[in-house]
Structures are given as structure tokens and as C-alpha cells.
């Protein structure tokens, strides 16, 4: 059966060039980078080459990049690290209502310890309220953490404006750029970012490796302690193959950035136009201006999302309701909720993301099948245009 993968925000396939670069590190160049002999030292050198590539993609210095086991660890580390480092200054953290659970749940963990967290609201397009952000700052505020781009609706935040507010108030600014990386230009220096989370598997690299950018001068305690890897800030034998793969993926992302954005946003717009002209009663969610190039979020009114996903799956079409990691948990998306959408619409919403391997033909096929499926499901839905909810 034809397979059309439209869930690049959940994860991406490892690109051929990336896998090729990784392969020697499993069984040949397998040395422990902390060792003093040849195959150990060369592994260390190769990790540092990967570090330089990731740094270059975001305009950082090499030594400001710390490899982690993924975006989740980077988010946990940044927030818990800032909380511990700034304990004597205060206990207040500002974030947004639409962050990824890696951030939200870490904040909740800290709340149980007595930290206070403000969740700034967003408008119906998913852009945070800058005024509200600035007003929520107190003299106890130690961290502002606002995601660069949202994983469900793709809305890109006004990062520069946020960093200026943070700077003006002498507060550290962290951003979760897991979705933004490789999908929009990022220059951490120009944007005034203090810490930034990244993940390899969203940019055609392997799963289980990510990085935290920590601006030099910022000192936070380790989340994982032990050996003296990563300049003594993140312990654990390095996932050498994974890191090398992340480096290569970053290099490709940088080289292809413009082309990628153009290609993917064209496909996205084609998808949206096509589905709009073939189906009634659908809503396109999010912000068409400040949006990740590949993101499409649609409410198919009167059709429940999981049912739609499963029908699509039988046609080889992959997409998701909300973020992948909550797909299996059947809870309505906190992001769409924060955008002010009613629950029934949230249940009827699907995220599609197109990527580097998507073709126009894929979209023609997908839209055609989706239209058929939606019409079928609507034919026996308890709701309809006539009997609206």
C-alpha cells in the first residue's frame, strides 16, 4: 500500500547521508571518547566536529553546545538548572500555556517544590501576549521560557521581543526550539537567547540525541552528574554515533534551510488550498503568517480525530492529533484549548506536517483519501451542519 507520511513534527526519518556518517561509530570507531588512546581520542574529536556543526546552525560558539539525550532532557535541564542556580534570587518562572509537556511537567514538578509559575496566555492564533508577559514579571522572576515555535499549530513566537523583555528585566531567557530548528533561521546571538533546547530527530537525525545551548557566562548545575563528559556539565558516556548524526543533520539543515522552507511551505499551502476547495466545514487553526513551514492544523467538524486518523492509517496516511506524545493518552490538546477552541473542535482536529520527502503527488493522494474518509465518517456522525453541536 502507498505510504504517505505527514507527521514530520512527530519525528523524521534519518536521512541517508546522516546514517552513512553514523555507521562507522557502532562497530569500528567505537572508542569511549574519554579514553586516552587513539580510537577514544578520535571519537572525542568527532563529537567536537558535530558540536561545531550544531553551533554553526544557530550562530553559537562550539563550547556553548551541550549534547543531551533529546529535547526533553534539554528542557528539563534548562528549567531545573535555572531554578536551582537562581534559588537565592527568587522562585518565579514565566512560561506559556502552550509549551510542550517536557516543559510544562517540569514546571509542575517545581511547583510542588514551592516554585511559582505563571503560564502566559496566547491569542487565537497561538501568539503569546507580550504585555501580559511583561506584567507578570516580579522581582522574584528567575526564568522566562517560551517556545520558539509550537509543535501542534506551528505558531512562531516573537522571540526577539521576548528576549528584550527578559534582558530589560535581568532575567534568563530559555526557548524550546525543538520544532523551530532547521525550519526557520535562528541566530541565538542576534535573538538574545540565553538557553535553547534542540532535538536531532526532528531534523532528519536520530532519536535519543539533542542539545542544550547554554550561553557562555550562564552557569547552571548538571541534571545528570557523574563522569566529566561535556566539559563536566552533562555526565554519561556519549552517544557518539547519535551525536555525529546530529552534527550531520545540522549541517544539512543549514545548507538546505532556504530551499527547505520554500519547498515545504509551498507544499503546505498547496495542501491547505486543495483540502479547502474539496471539503466544507473545516477550520485551519493557527497563524498563517508566523508559522512553521510544514505545519497544517485542521478541524474537521463533526468527525472525531482518532477515528479519522485510523481510517487514514488504513490508507497509509500518517498524521496525528495533538503532539505525538499525547496521541496515545487521549486527552484533549492543551494547546488548542489555550487558543480558545471548544472541546468538540479540539477532538476533531488533526495535525499534518509535510517535510523534505513529501511530494505534490503525496498530497494529491492524501487529500483525495481524506475527503472520502471525512465524508464517510460524517455520513454516520451524530453531528452535522444541520444538527450542529
Amino acid at each position: 500500500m502507498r505510504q504517505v507520511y505527514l507527521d514530520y513534527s512527530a519525528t523524521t526519518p534519518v536521512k541517508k547521508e546522516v546514517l552513512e556518517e553514523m555507521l562507522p561509530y557502532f562497530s569500528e570507531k567505537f572508542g569511549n571518547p574519554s579514553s586516552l588512546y587513539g580510537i577514544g581520542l578520535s571519537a572525542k574529536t568527532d563529537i567536537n566536529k558535530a558540536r561545531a556543526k550544531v553551533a554553526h546552525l544557530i550562530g553559537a560558539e562550539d563550547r556553548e553546545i551541550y549534547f543531551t539525550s533529546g529535547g526533553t532532557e534539554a528542557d528539563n535541564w534548562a528549567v531545573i538548572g535555572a531554578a536551582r542556580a537562581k534559588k537565592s534570587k527568587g522562585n518565579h518562572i514565566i512560561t506559556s500555556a502552550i509549551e510542550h509537556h517536557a516543559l510544562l511537567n517540569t514546571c509542575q514538578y517545581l511547583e510542588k517544590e514551592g516554585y511559582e509559575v505563571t503560564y502566559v496566555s496566547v491569542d487565537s492564533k497561538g501568539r503569546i501576549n507580550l504585555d501580559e508577559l511583561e506584567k507578570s514579571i516580579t522581582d522574584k522572576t528567575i526564568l522566562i521560557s517560551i517556545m520558539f515555535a509550537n509543535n501542534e499549530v506551528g505558531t512562531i513566537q516573537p522571540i526577539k521581543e521576548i528576549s528584550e523583555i527578559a534582558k530589560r528585566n535581568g532575567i534568563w531567557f530559555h526557548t524550546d526550539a525543538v520544532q523551530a530548528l532547521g525550519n526557520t533561521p535562528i541566530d541565538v546571538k542576534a535573538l538574545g537567547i540565553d538557553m535553547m533546547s534542540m532535538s536531532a530527530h526532528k531534523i532528519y537525525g536520530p532519536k535519543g540525541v539533542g542539545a542544550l545551548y547554554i550561553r557562555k557566562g550562564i552557569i547552571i548545575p548538571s541534571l545528570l552528574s557523574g563522569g566529566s563528559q561535556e566539559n563536566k556539565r552533562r555526565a554519561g558516556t556519549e552517544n557518539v554515533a547519535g551525536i555525529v548524526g546530529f552534527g550531520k543533520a545540522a549541517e544539512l539543515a543549514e545548507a538546505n534551510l532556504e530551499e527547505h522552507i520554500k519547498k515545504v511551505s509551498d507544499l503546505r499551502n498547496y495542501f491547505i488550498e486543495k483540502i479547502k476547495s474539496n471539503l466544507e466545514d473545516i477550520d485551519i487553526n493557527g497563524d498563517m503568517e508566523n508559522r512553521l513551514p510544514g505545519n497544517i492544523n485542521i478541524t474537521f467538524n463533526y468527525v472525531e480525530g482518532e477515528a479519522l486518523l485510523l481510517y487514514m492509517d488504513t490508507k497509509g496516511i500518517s498524521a496525528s492529533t495533538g503532539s505525538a506524545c499525547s496521541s496515545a493518552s487521549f486527552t484533549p490538546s492543551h494547546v488548542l484549548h489555550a487558543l480558545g477552541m471548544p472541546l468538540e473542535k479540539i477532538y476533531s482536529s488533526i495535525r499534518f506536517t509535510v517535510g523534505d520527502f513529501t511530494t505534490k503527488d503525496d498530497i494529491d493522494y492524501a487529500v483525495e483519501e481524506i475527503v472520502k474518509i471525512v465524508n464517510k465518517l460524517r455520513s454516520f456522525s451524530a453531528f452535522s451542519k444541520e444538527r450542529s453541536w
Partner: protein
Amino acid sequence: MSMYNEKVMDHFMNPRNAGAMEDPDAVGSYGSPVCGDMMEIQLKIENNVIIDAKFKTFGCGSAIASSSVATEMIKGKTLEEALDLTNKNFVDELGGLPGPKIHCSVLAEQAIKSAIYDYAKKNGLELEGLKDFDPDSKFDDHHDKE
């Protein structure tokens, strides 16, 4: 690979009795769109026996599959027999549902009860199986909250 077994997928992909009928003898519904699940059921009844059933469901795979299998199972049954069926019977008939999805089958049970209640009310029947049925009961969120 799917989260549901083949039988569930079959009922989900090819739902039996989906849609509406003309002049139903009984109509019932259960659920709420804000909970992500809503089922409407229509019945044709002759001599106390359900001779036809149709459903319309807004809901996930297991809600649709349960609607399908439930309408199949009640056809040919007396009202009392139909009232005896619980969501467990539907789940068993489907060969099982994933843990967090079992509650979705309650939808069908309750919608059927609601339709028969409607019929009993219109026809002045007193049915043992409706003794504990409260048509105005608040719809509980039958999804696992996690």
C-alpha cells in the same frame, strides 16, 4: 499494525447499521461532543422485539465499533434481552478493546437503554431492565483522565 484487533477494525471500517431510518419507533442518545463521544440510536420494534437498529456516532474507533457491534447484537432480541446486554458483552463480542478504550463501549449500552426508555415511555411499558435507568443522569466523562 493497529491498536485494535481485526474484528474491531472491521466493525470500525465497515460499520453495520450506520445511518438513519424512516419512522423509528424509538430514539435514544448518549454522550456529549465535549467529551469527544456521542451516539444516537434508532430502533424499529415489533411485538417487543427489535427488528431493526441504526446508529450515528461521533467518536473514536472503539466508539464506532461498539456502536456497530451493539446494533448487530440487539437485532432480533426482545427489549428485555437487549436491556440485559452490557458494554462488557460488546467488548467481548469485539474480541477485546485496549485498556483505556473499554469505557467507550459504555456509550452503546447507555444509548440503547435510552432508546428503549423512550419506547417504554411512549408505550406505557414497565420494563424490569430499566428499573435503575435514569434518563437524566449526567453524562460522566467515561474517558480515562491521565
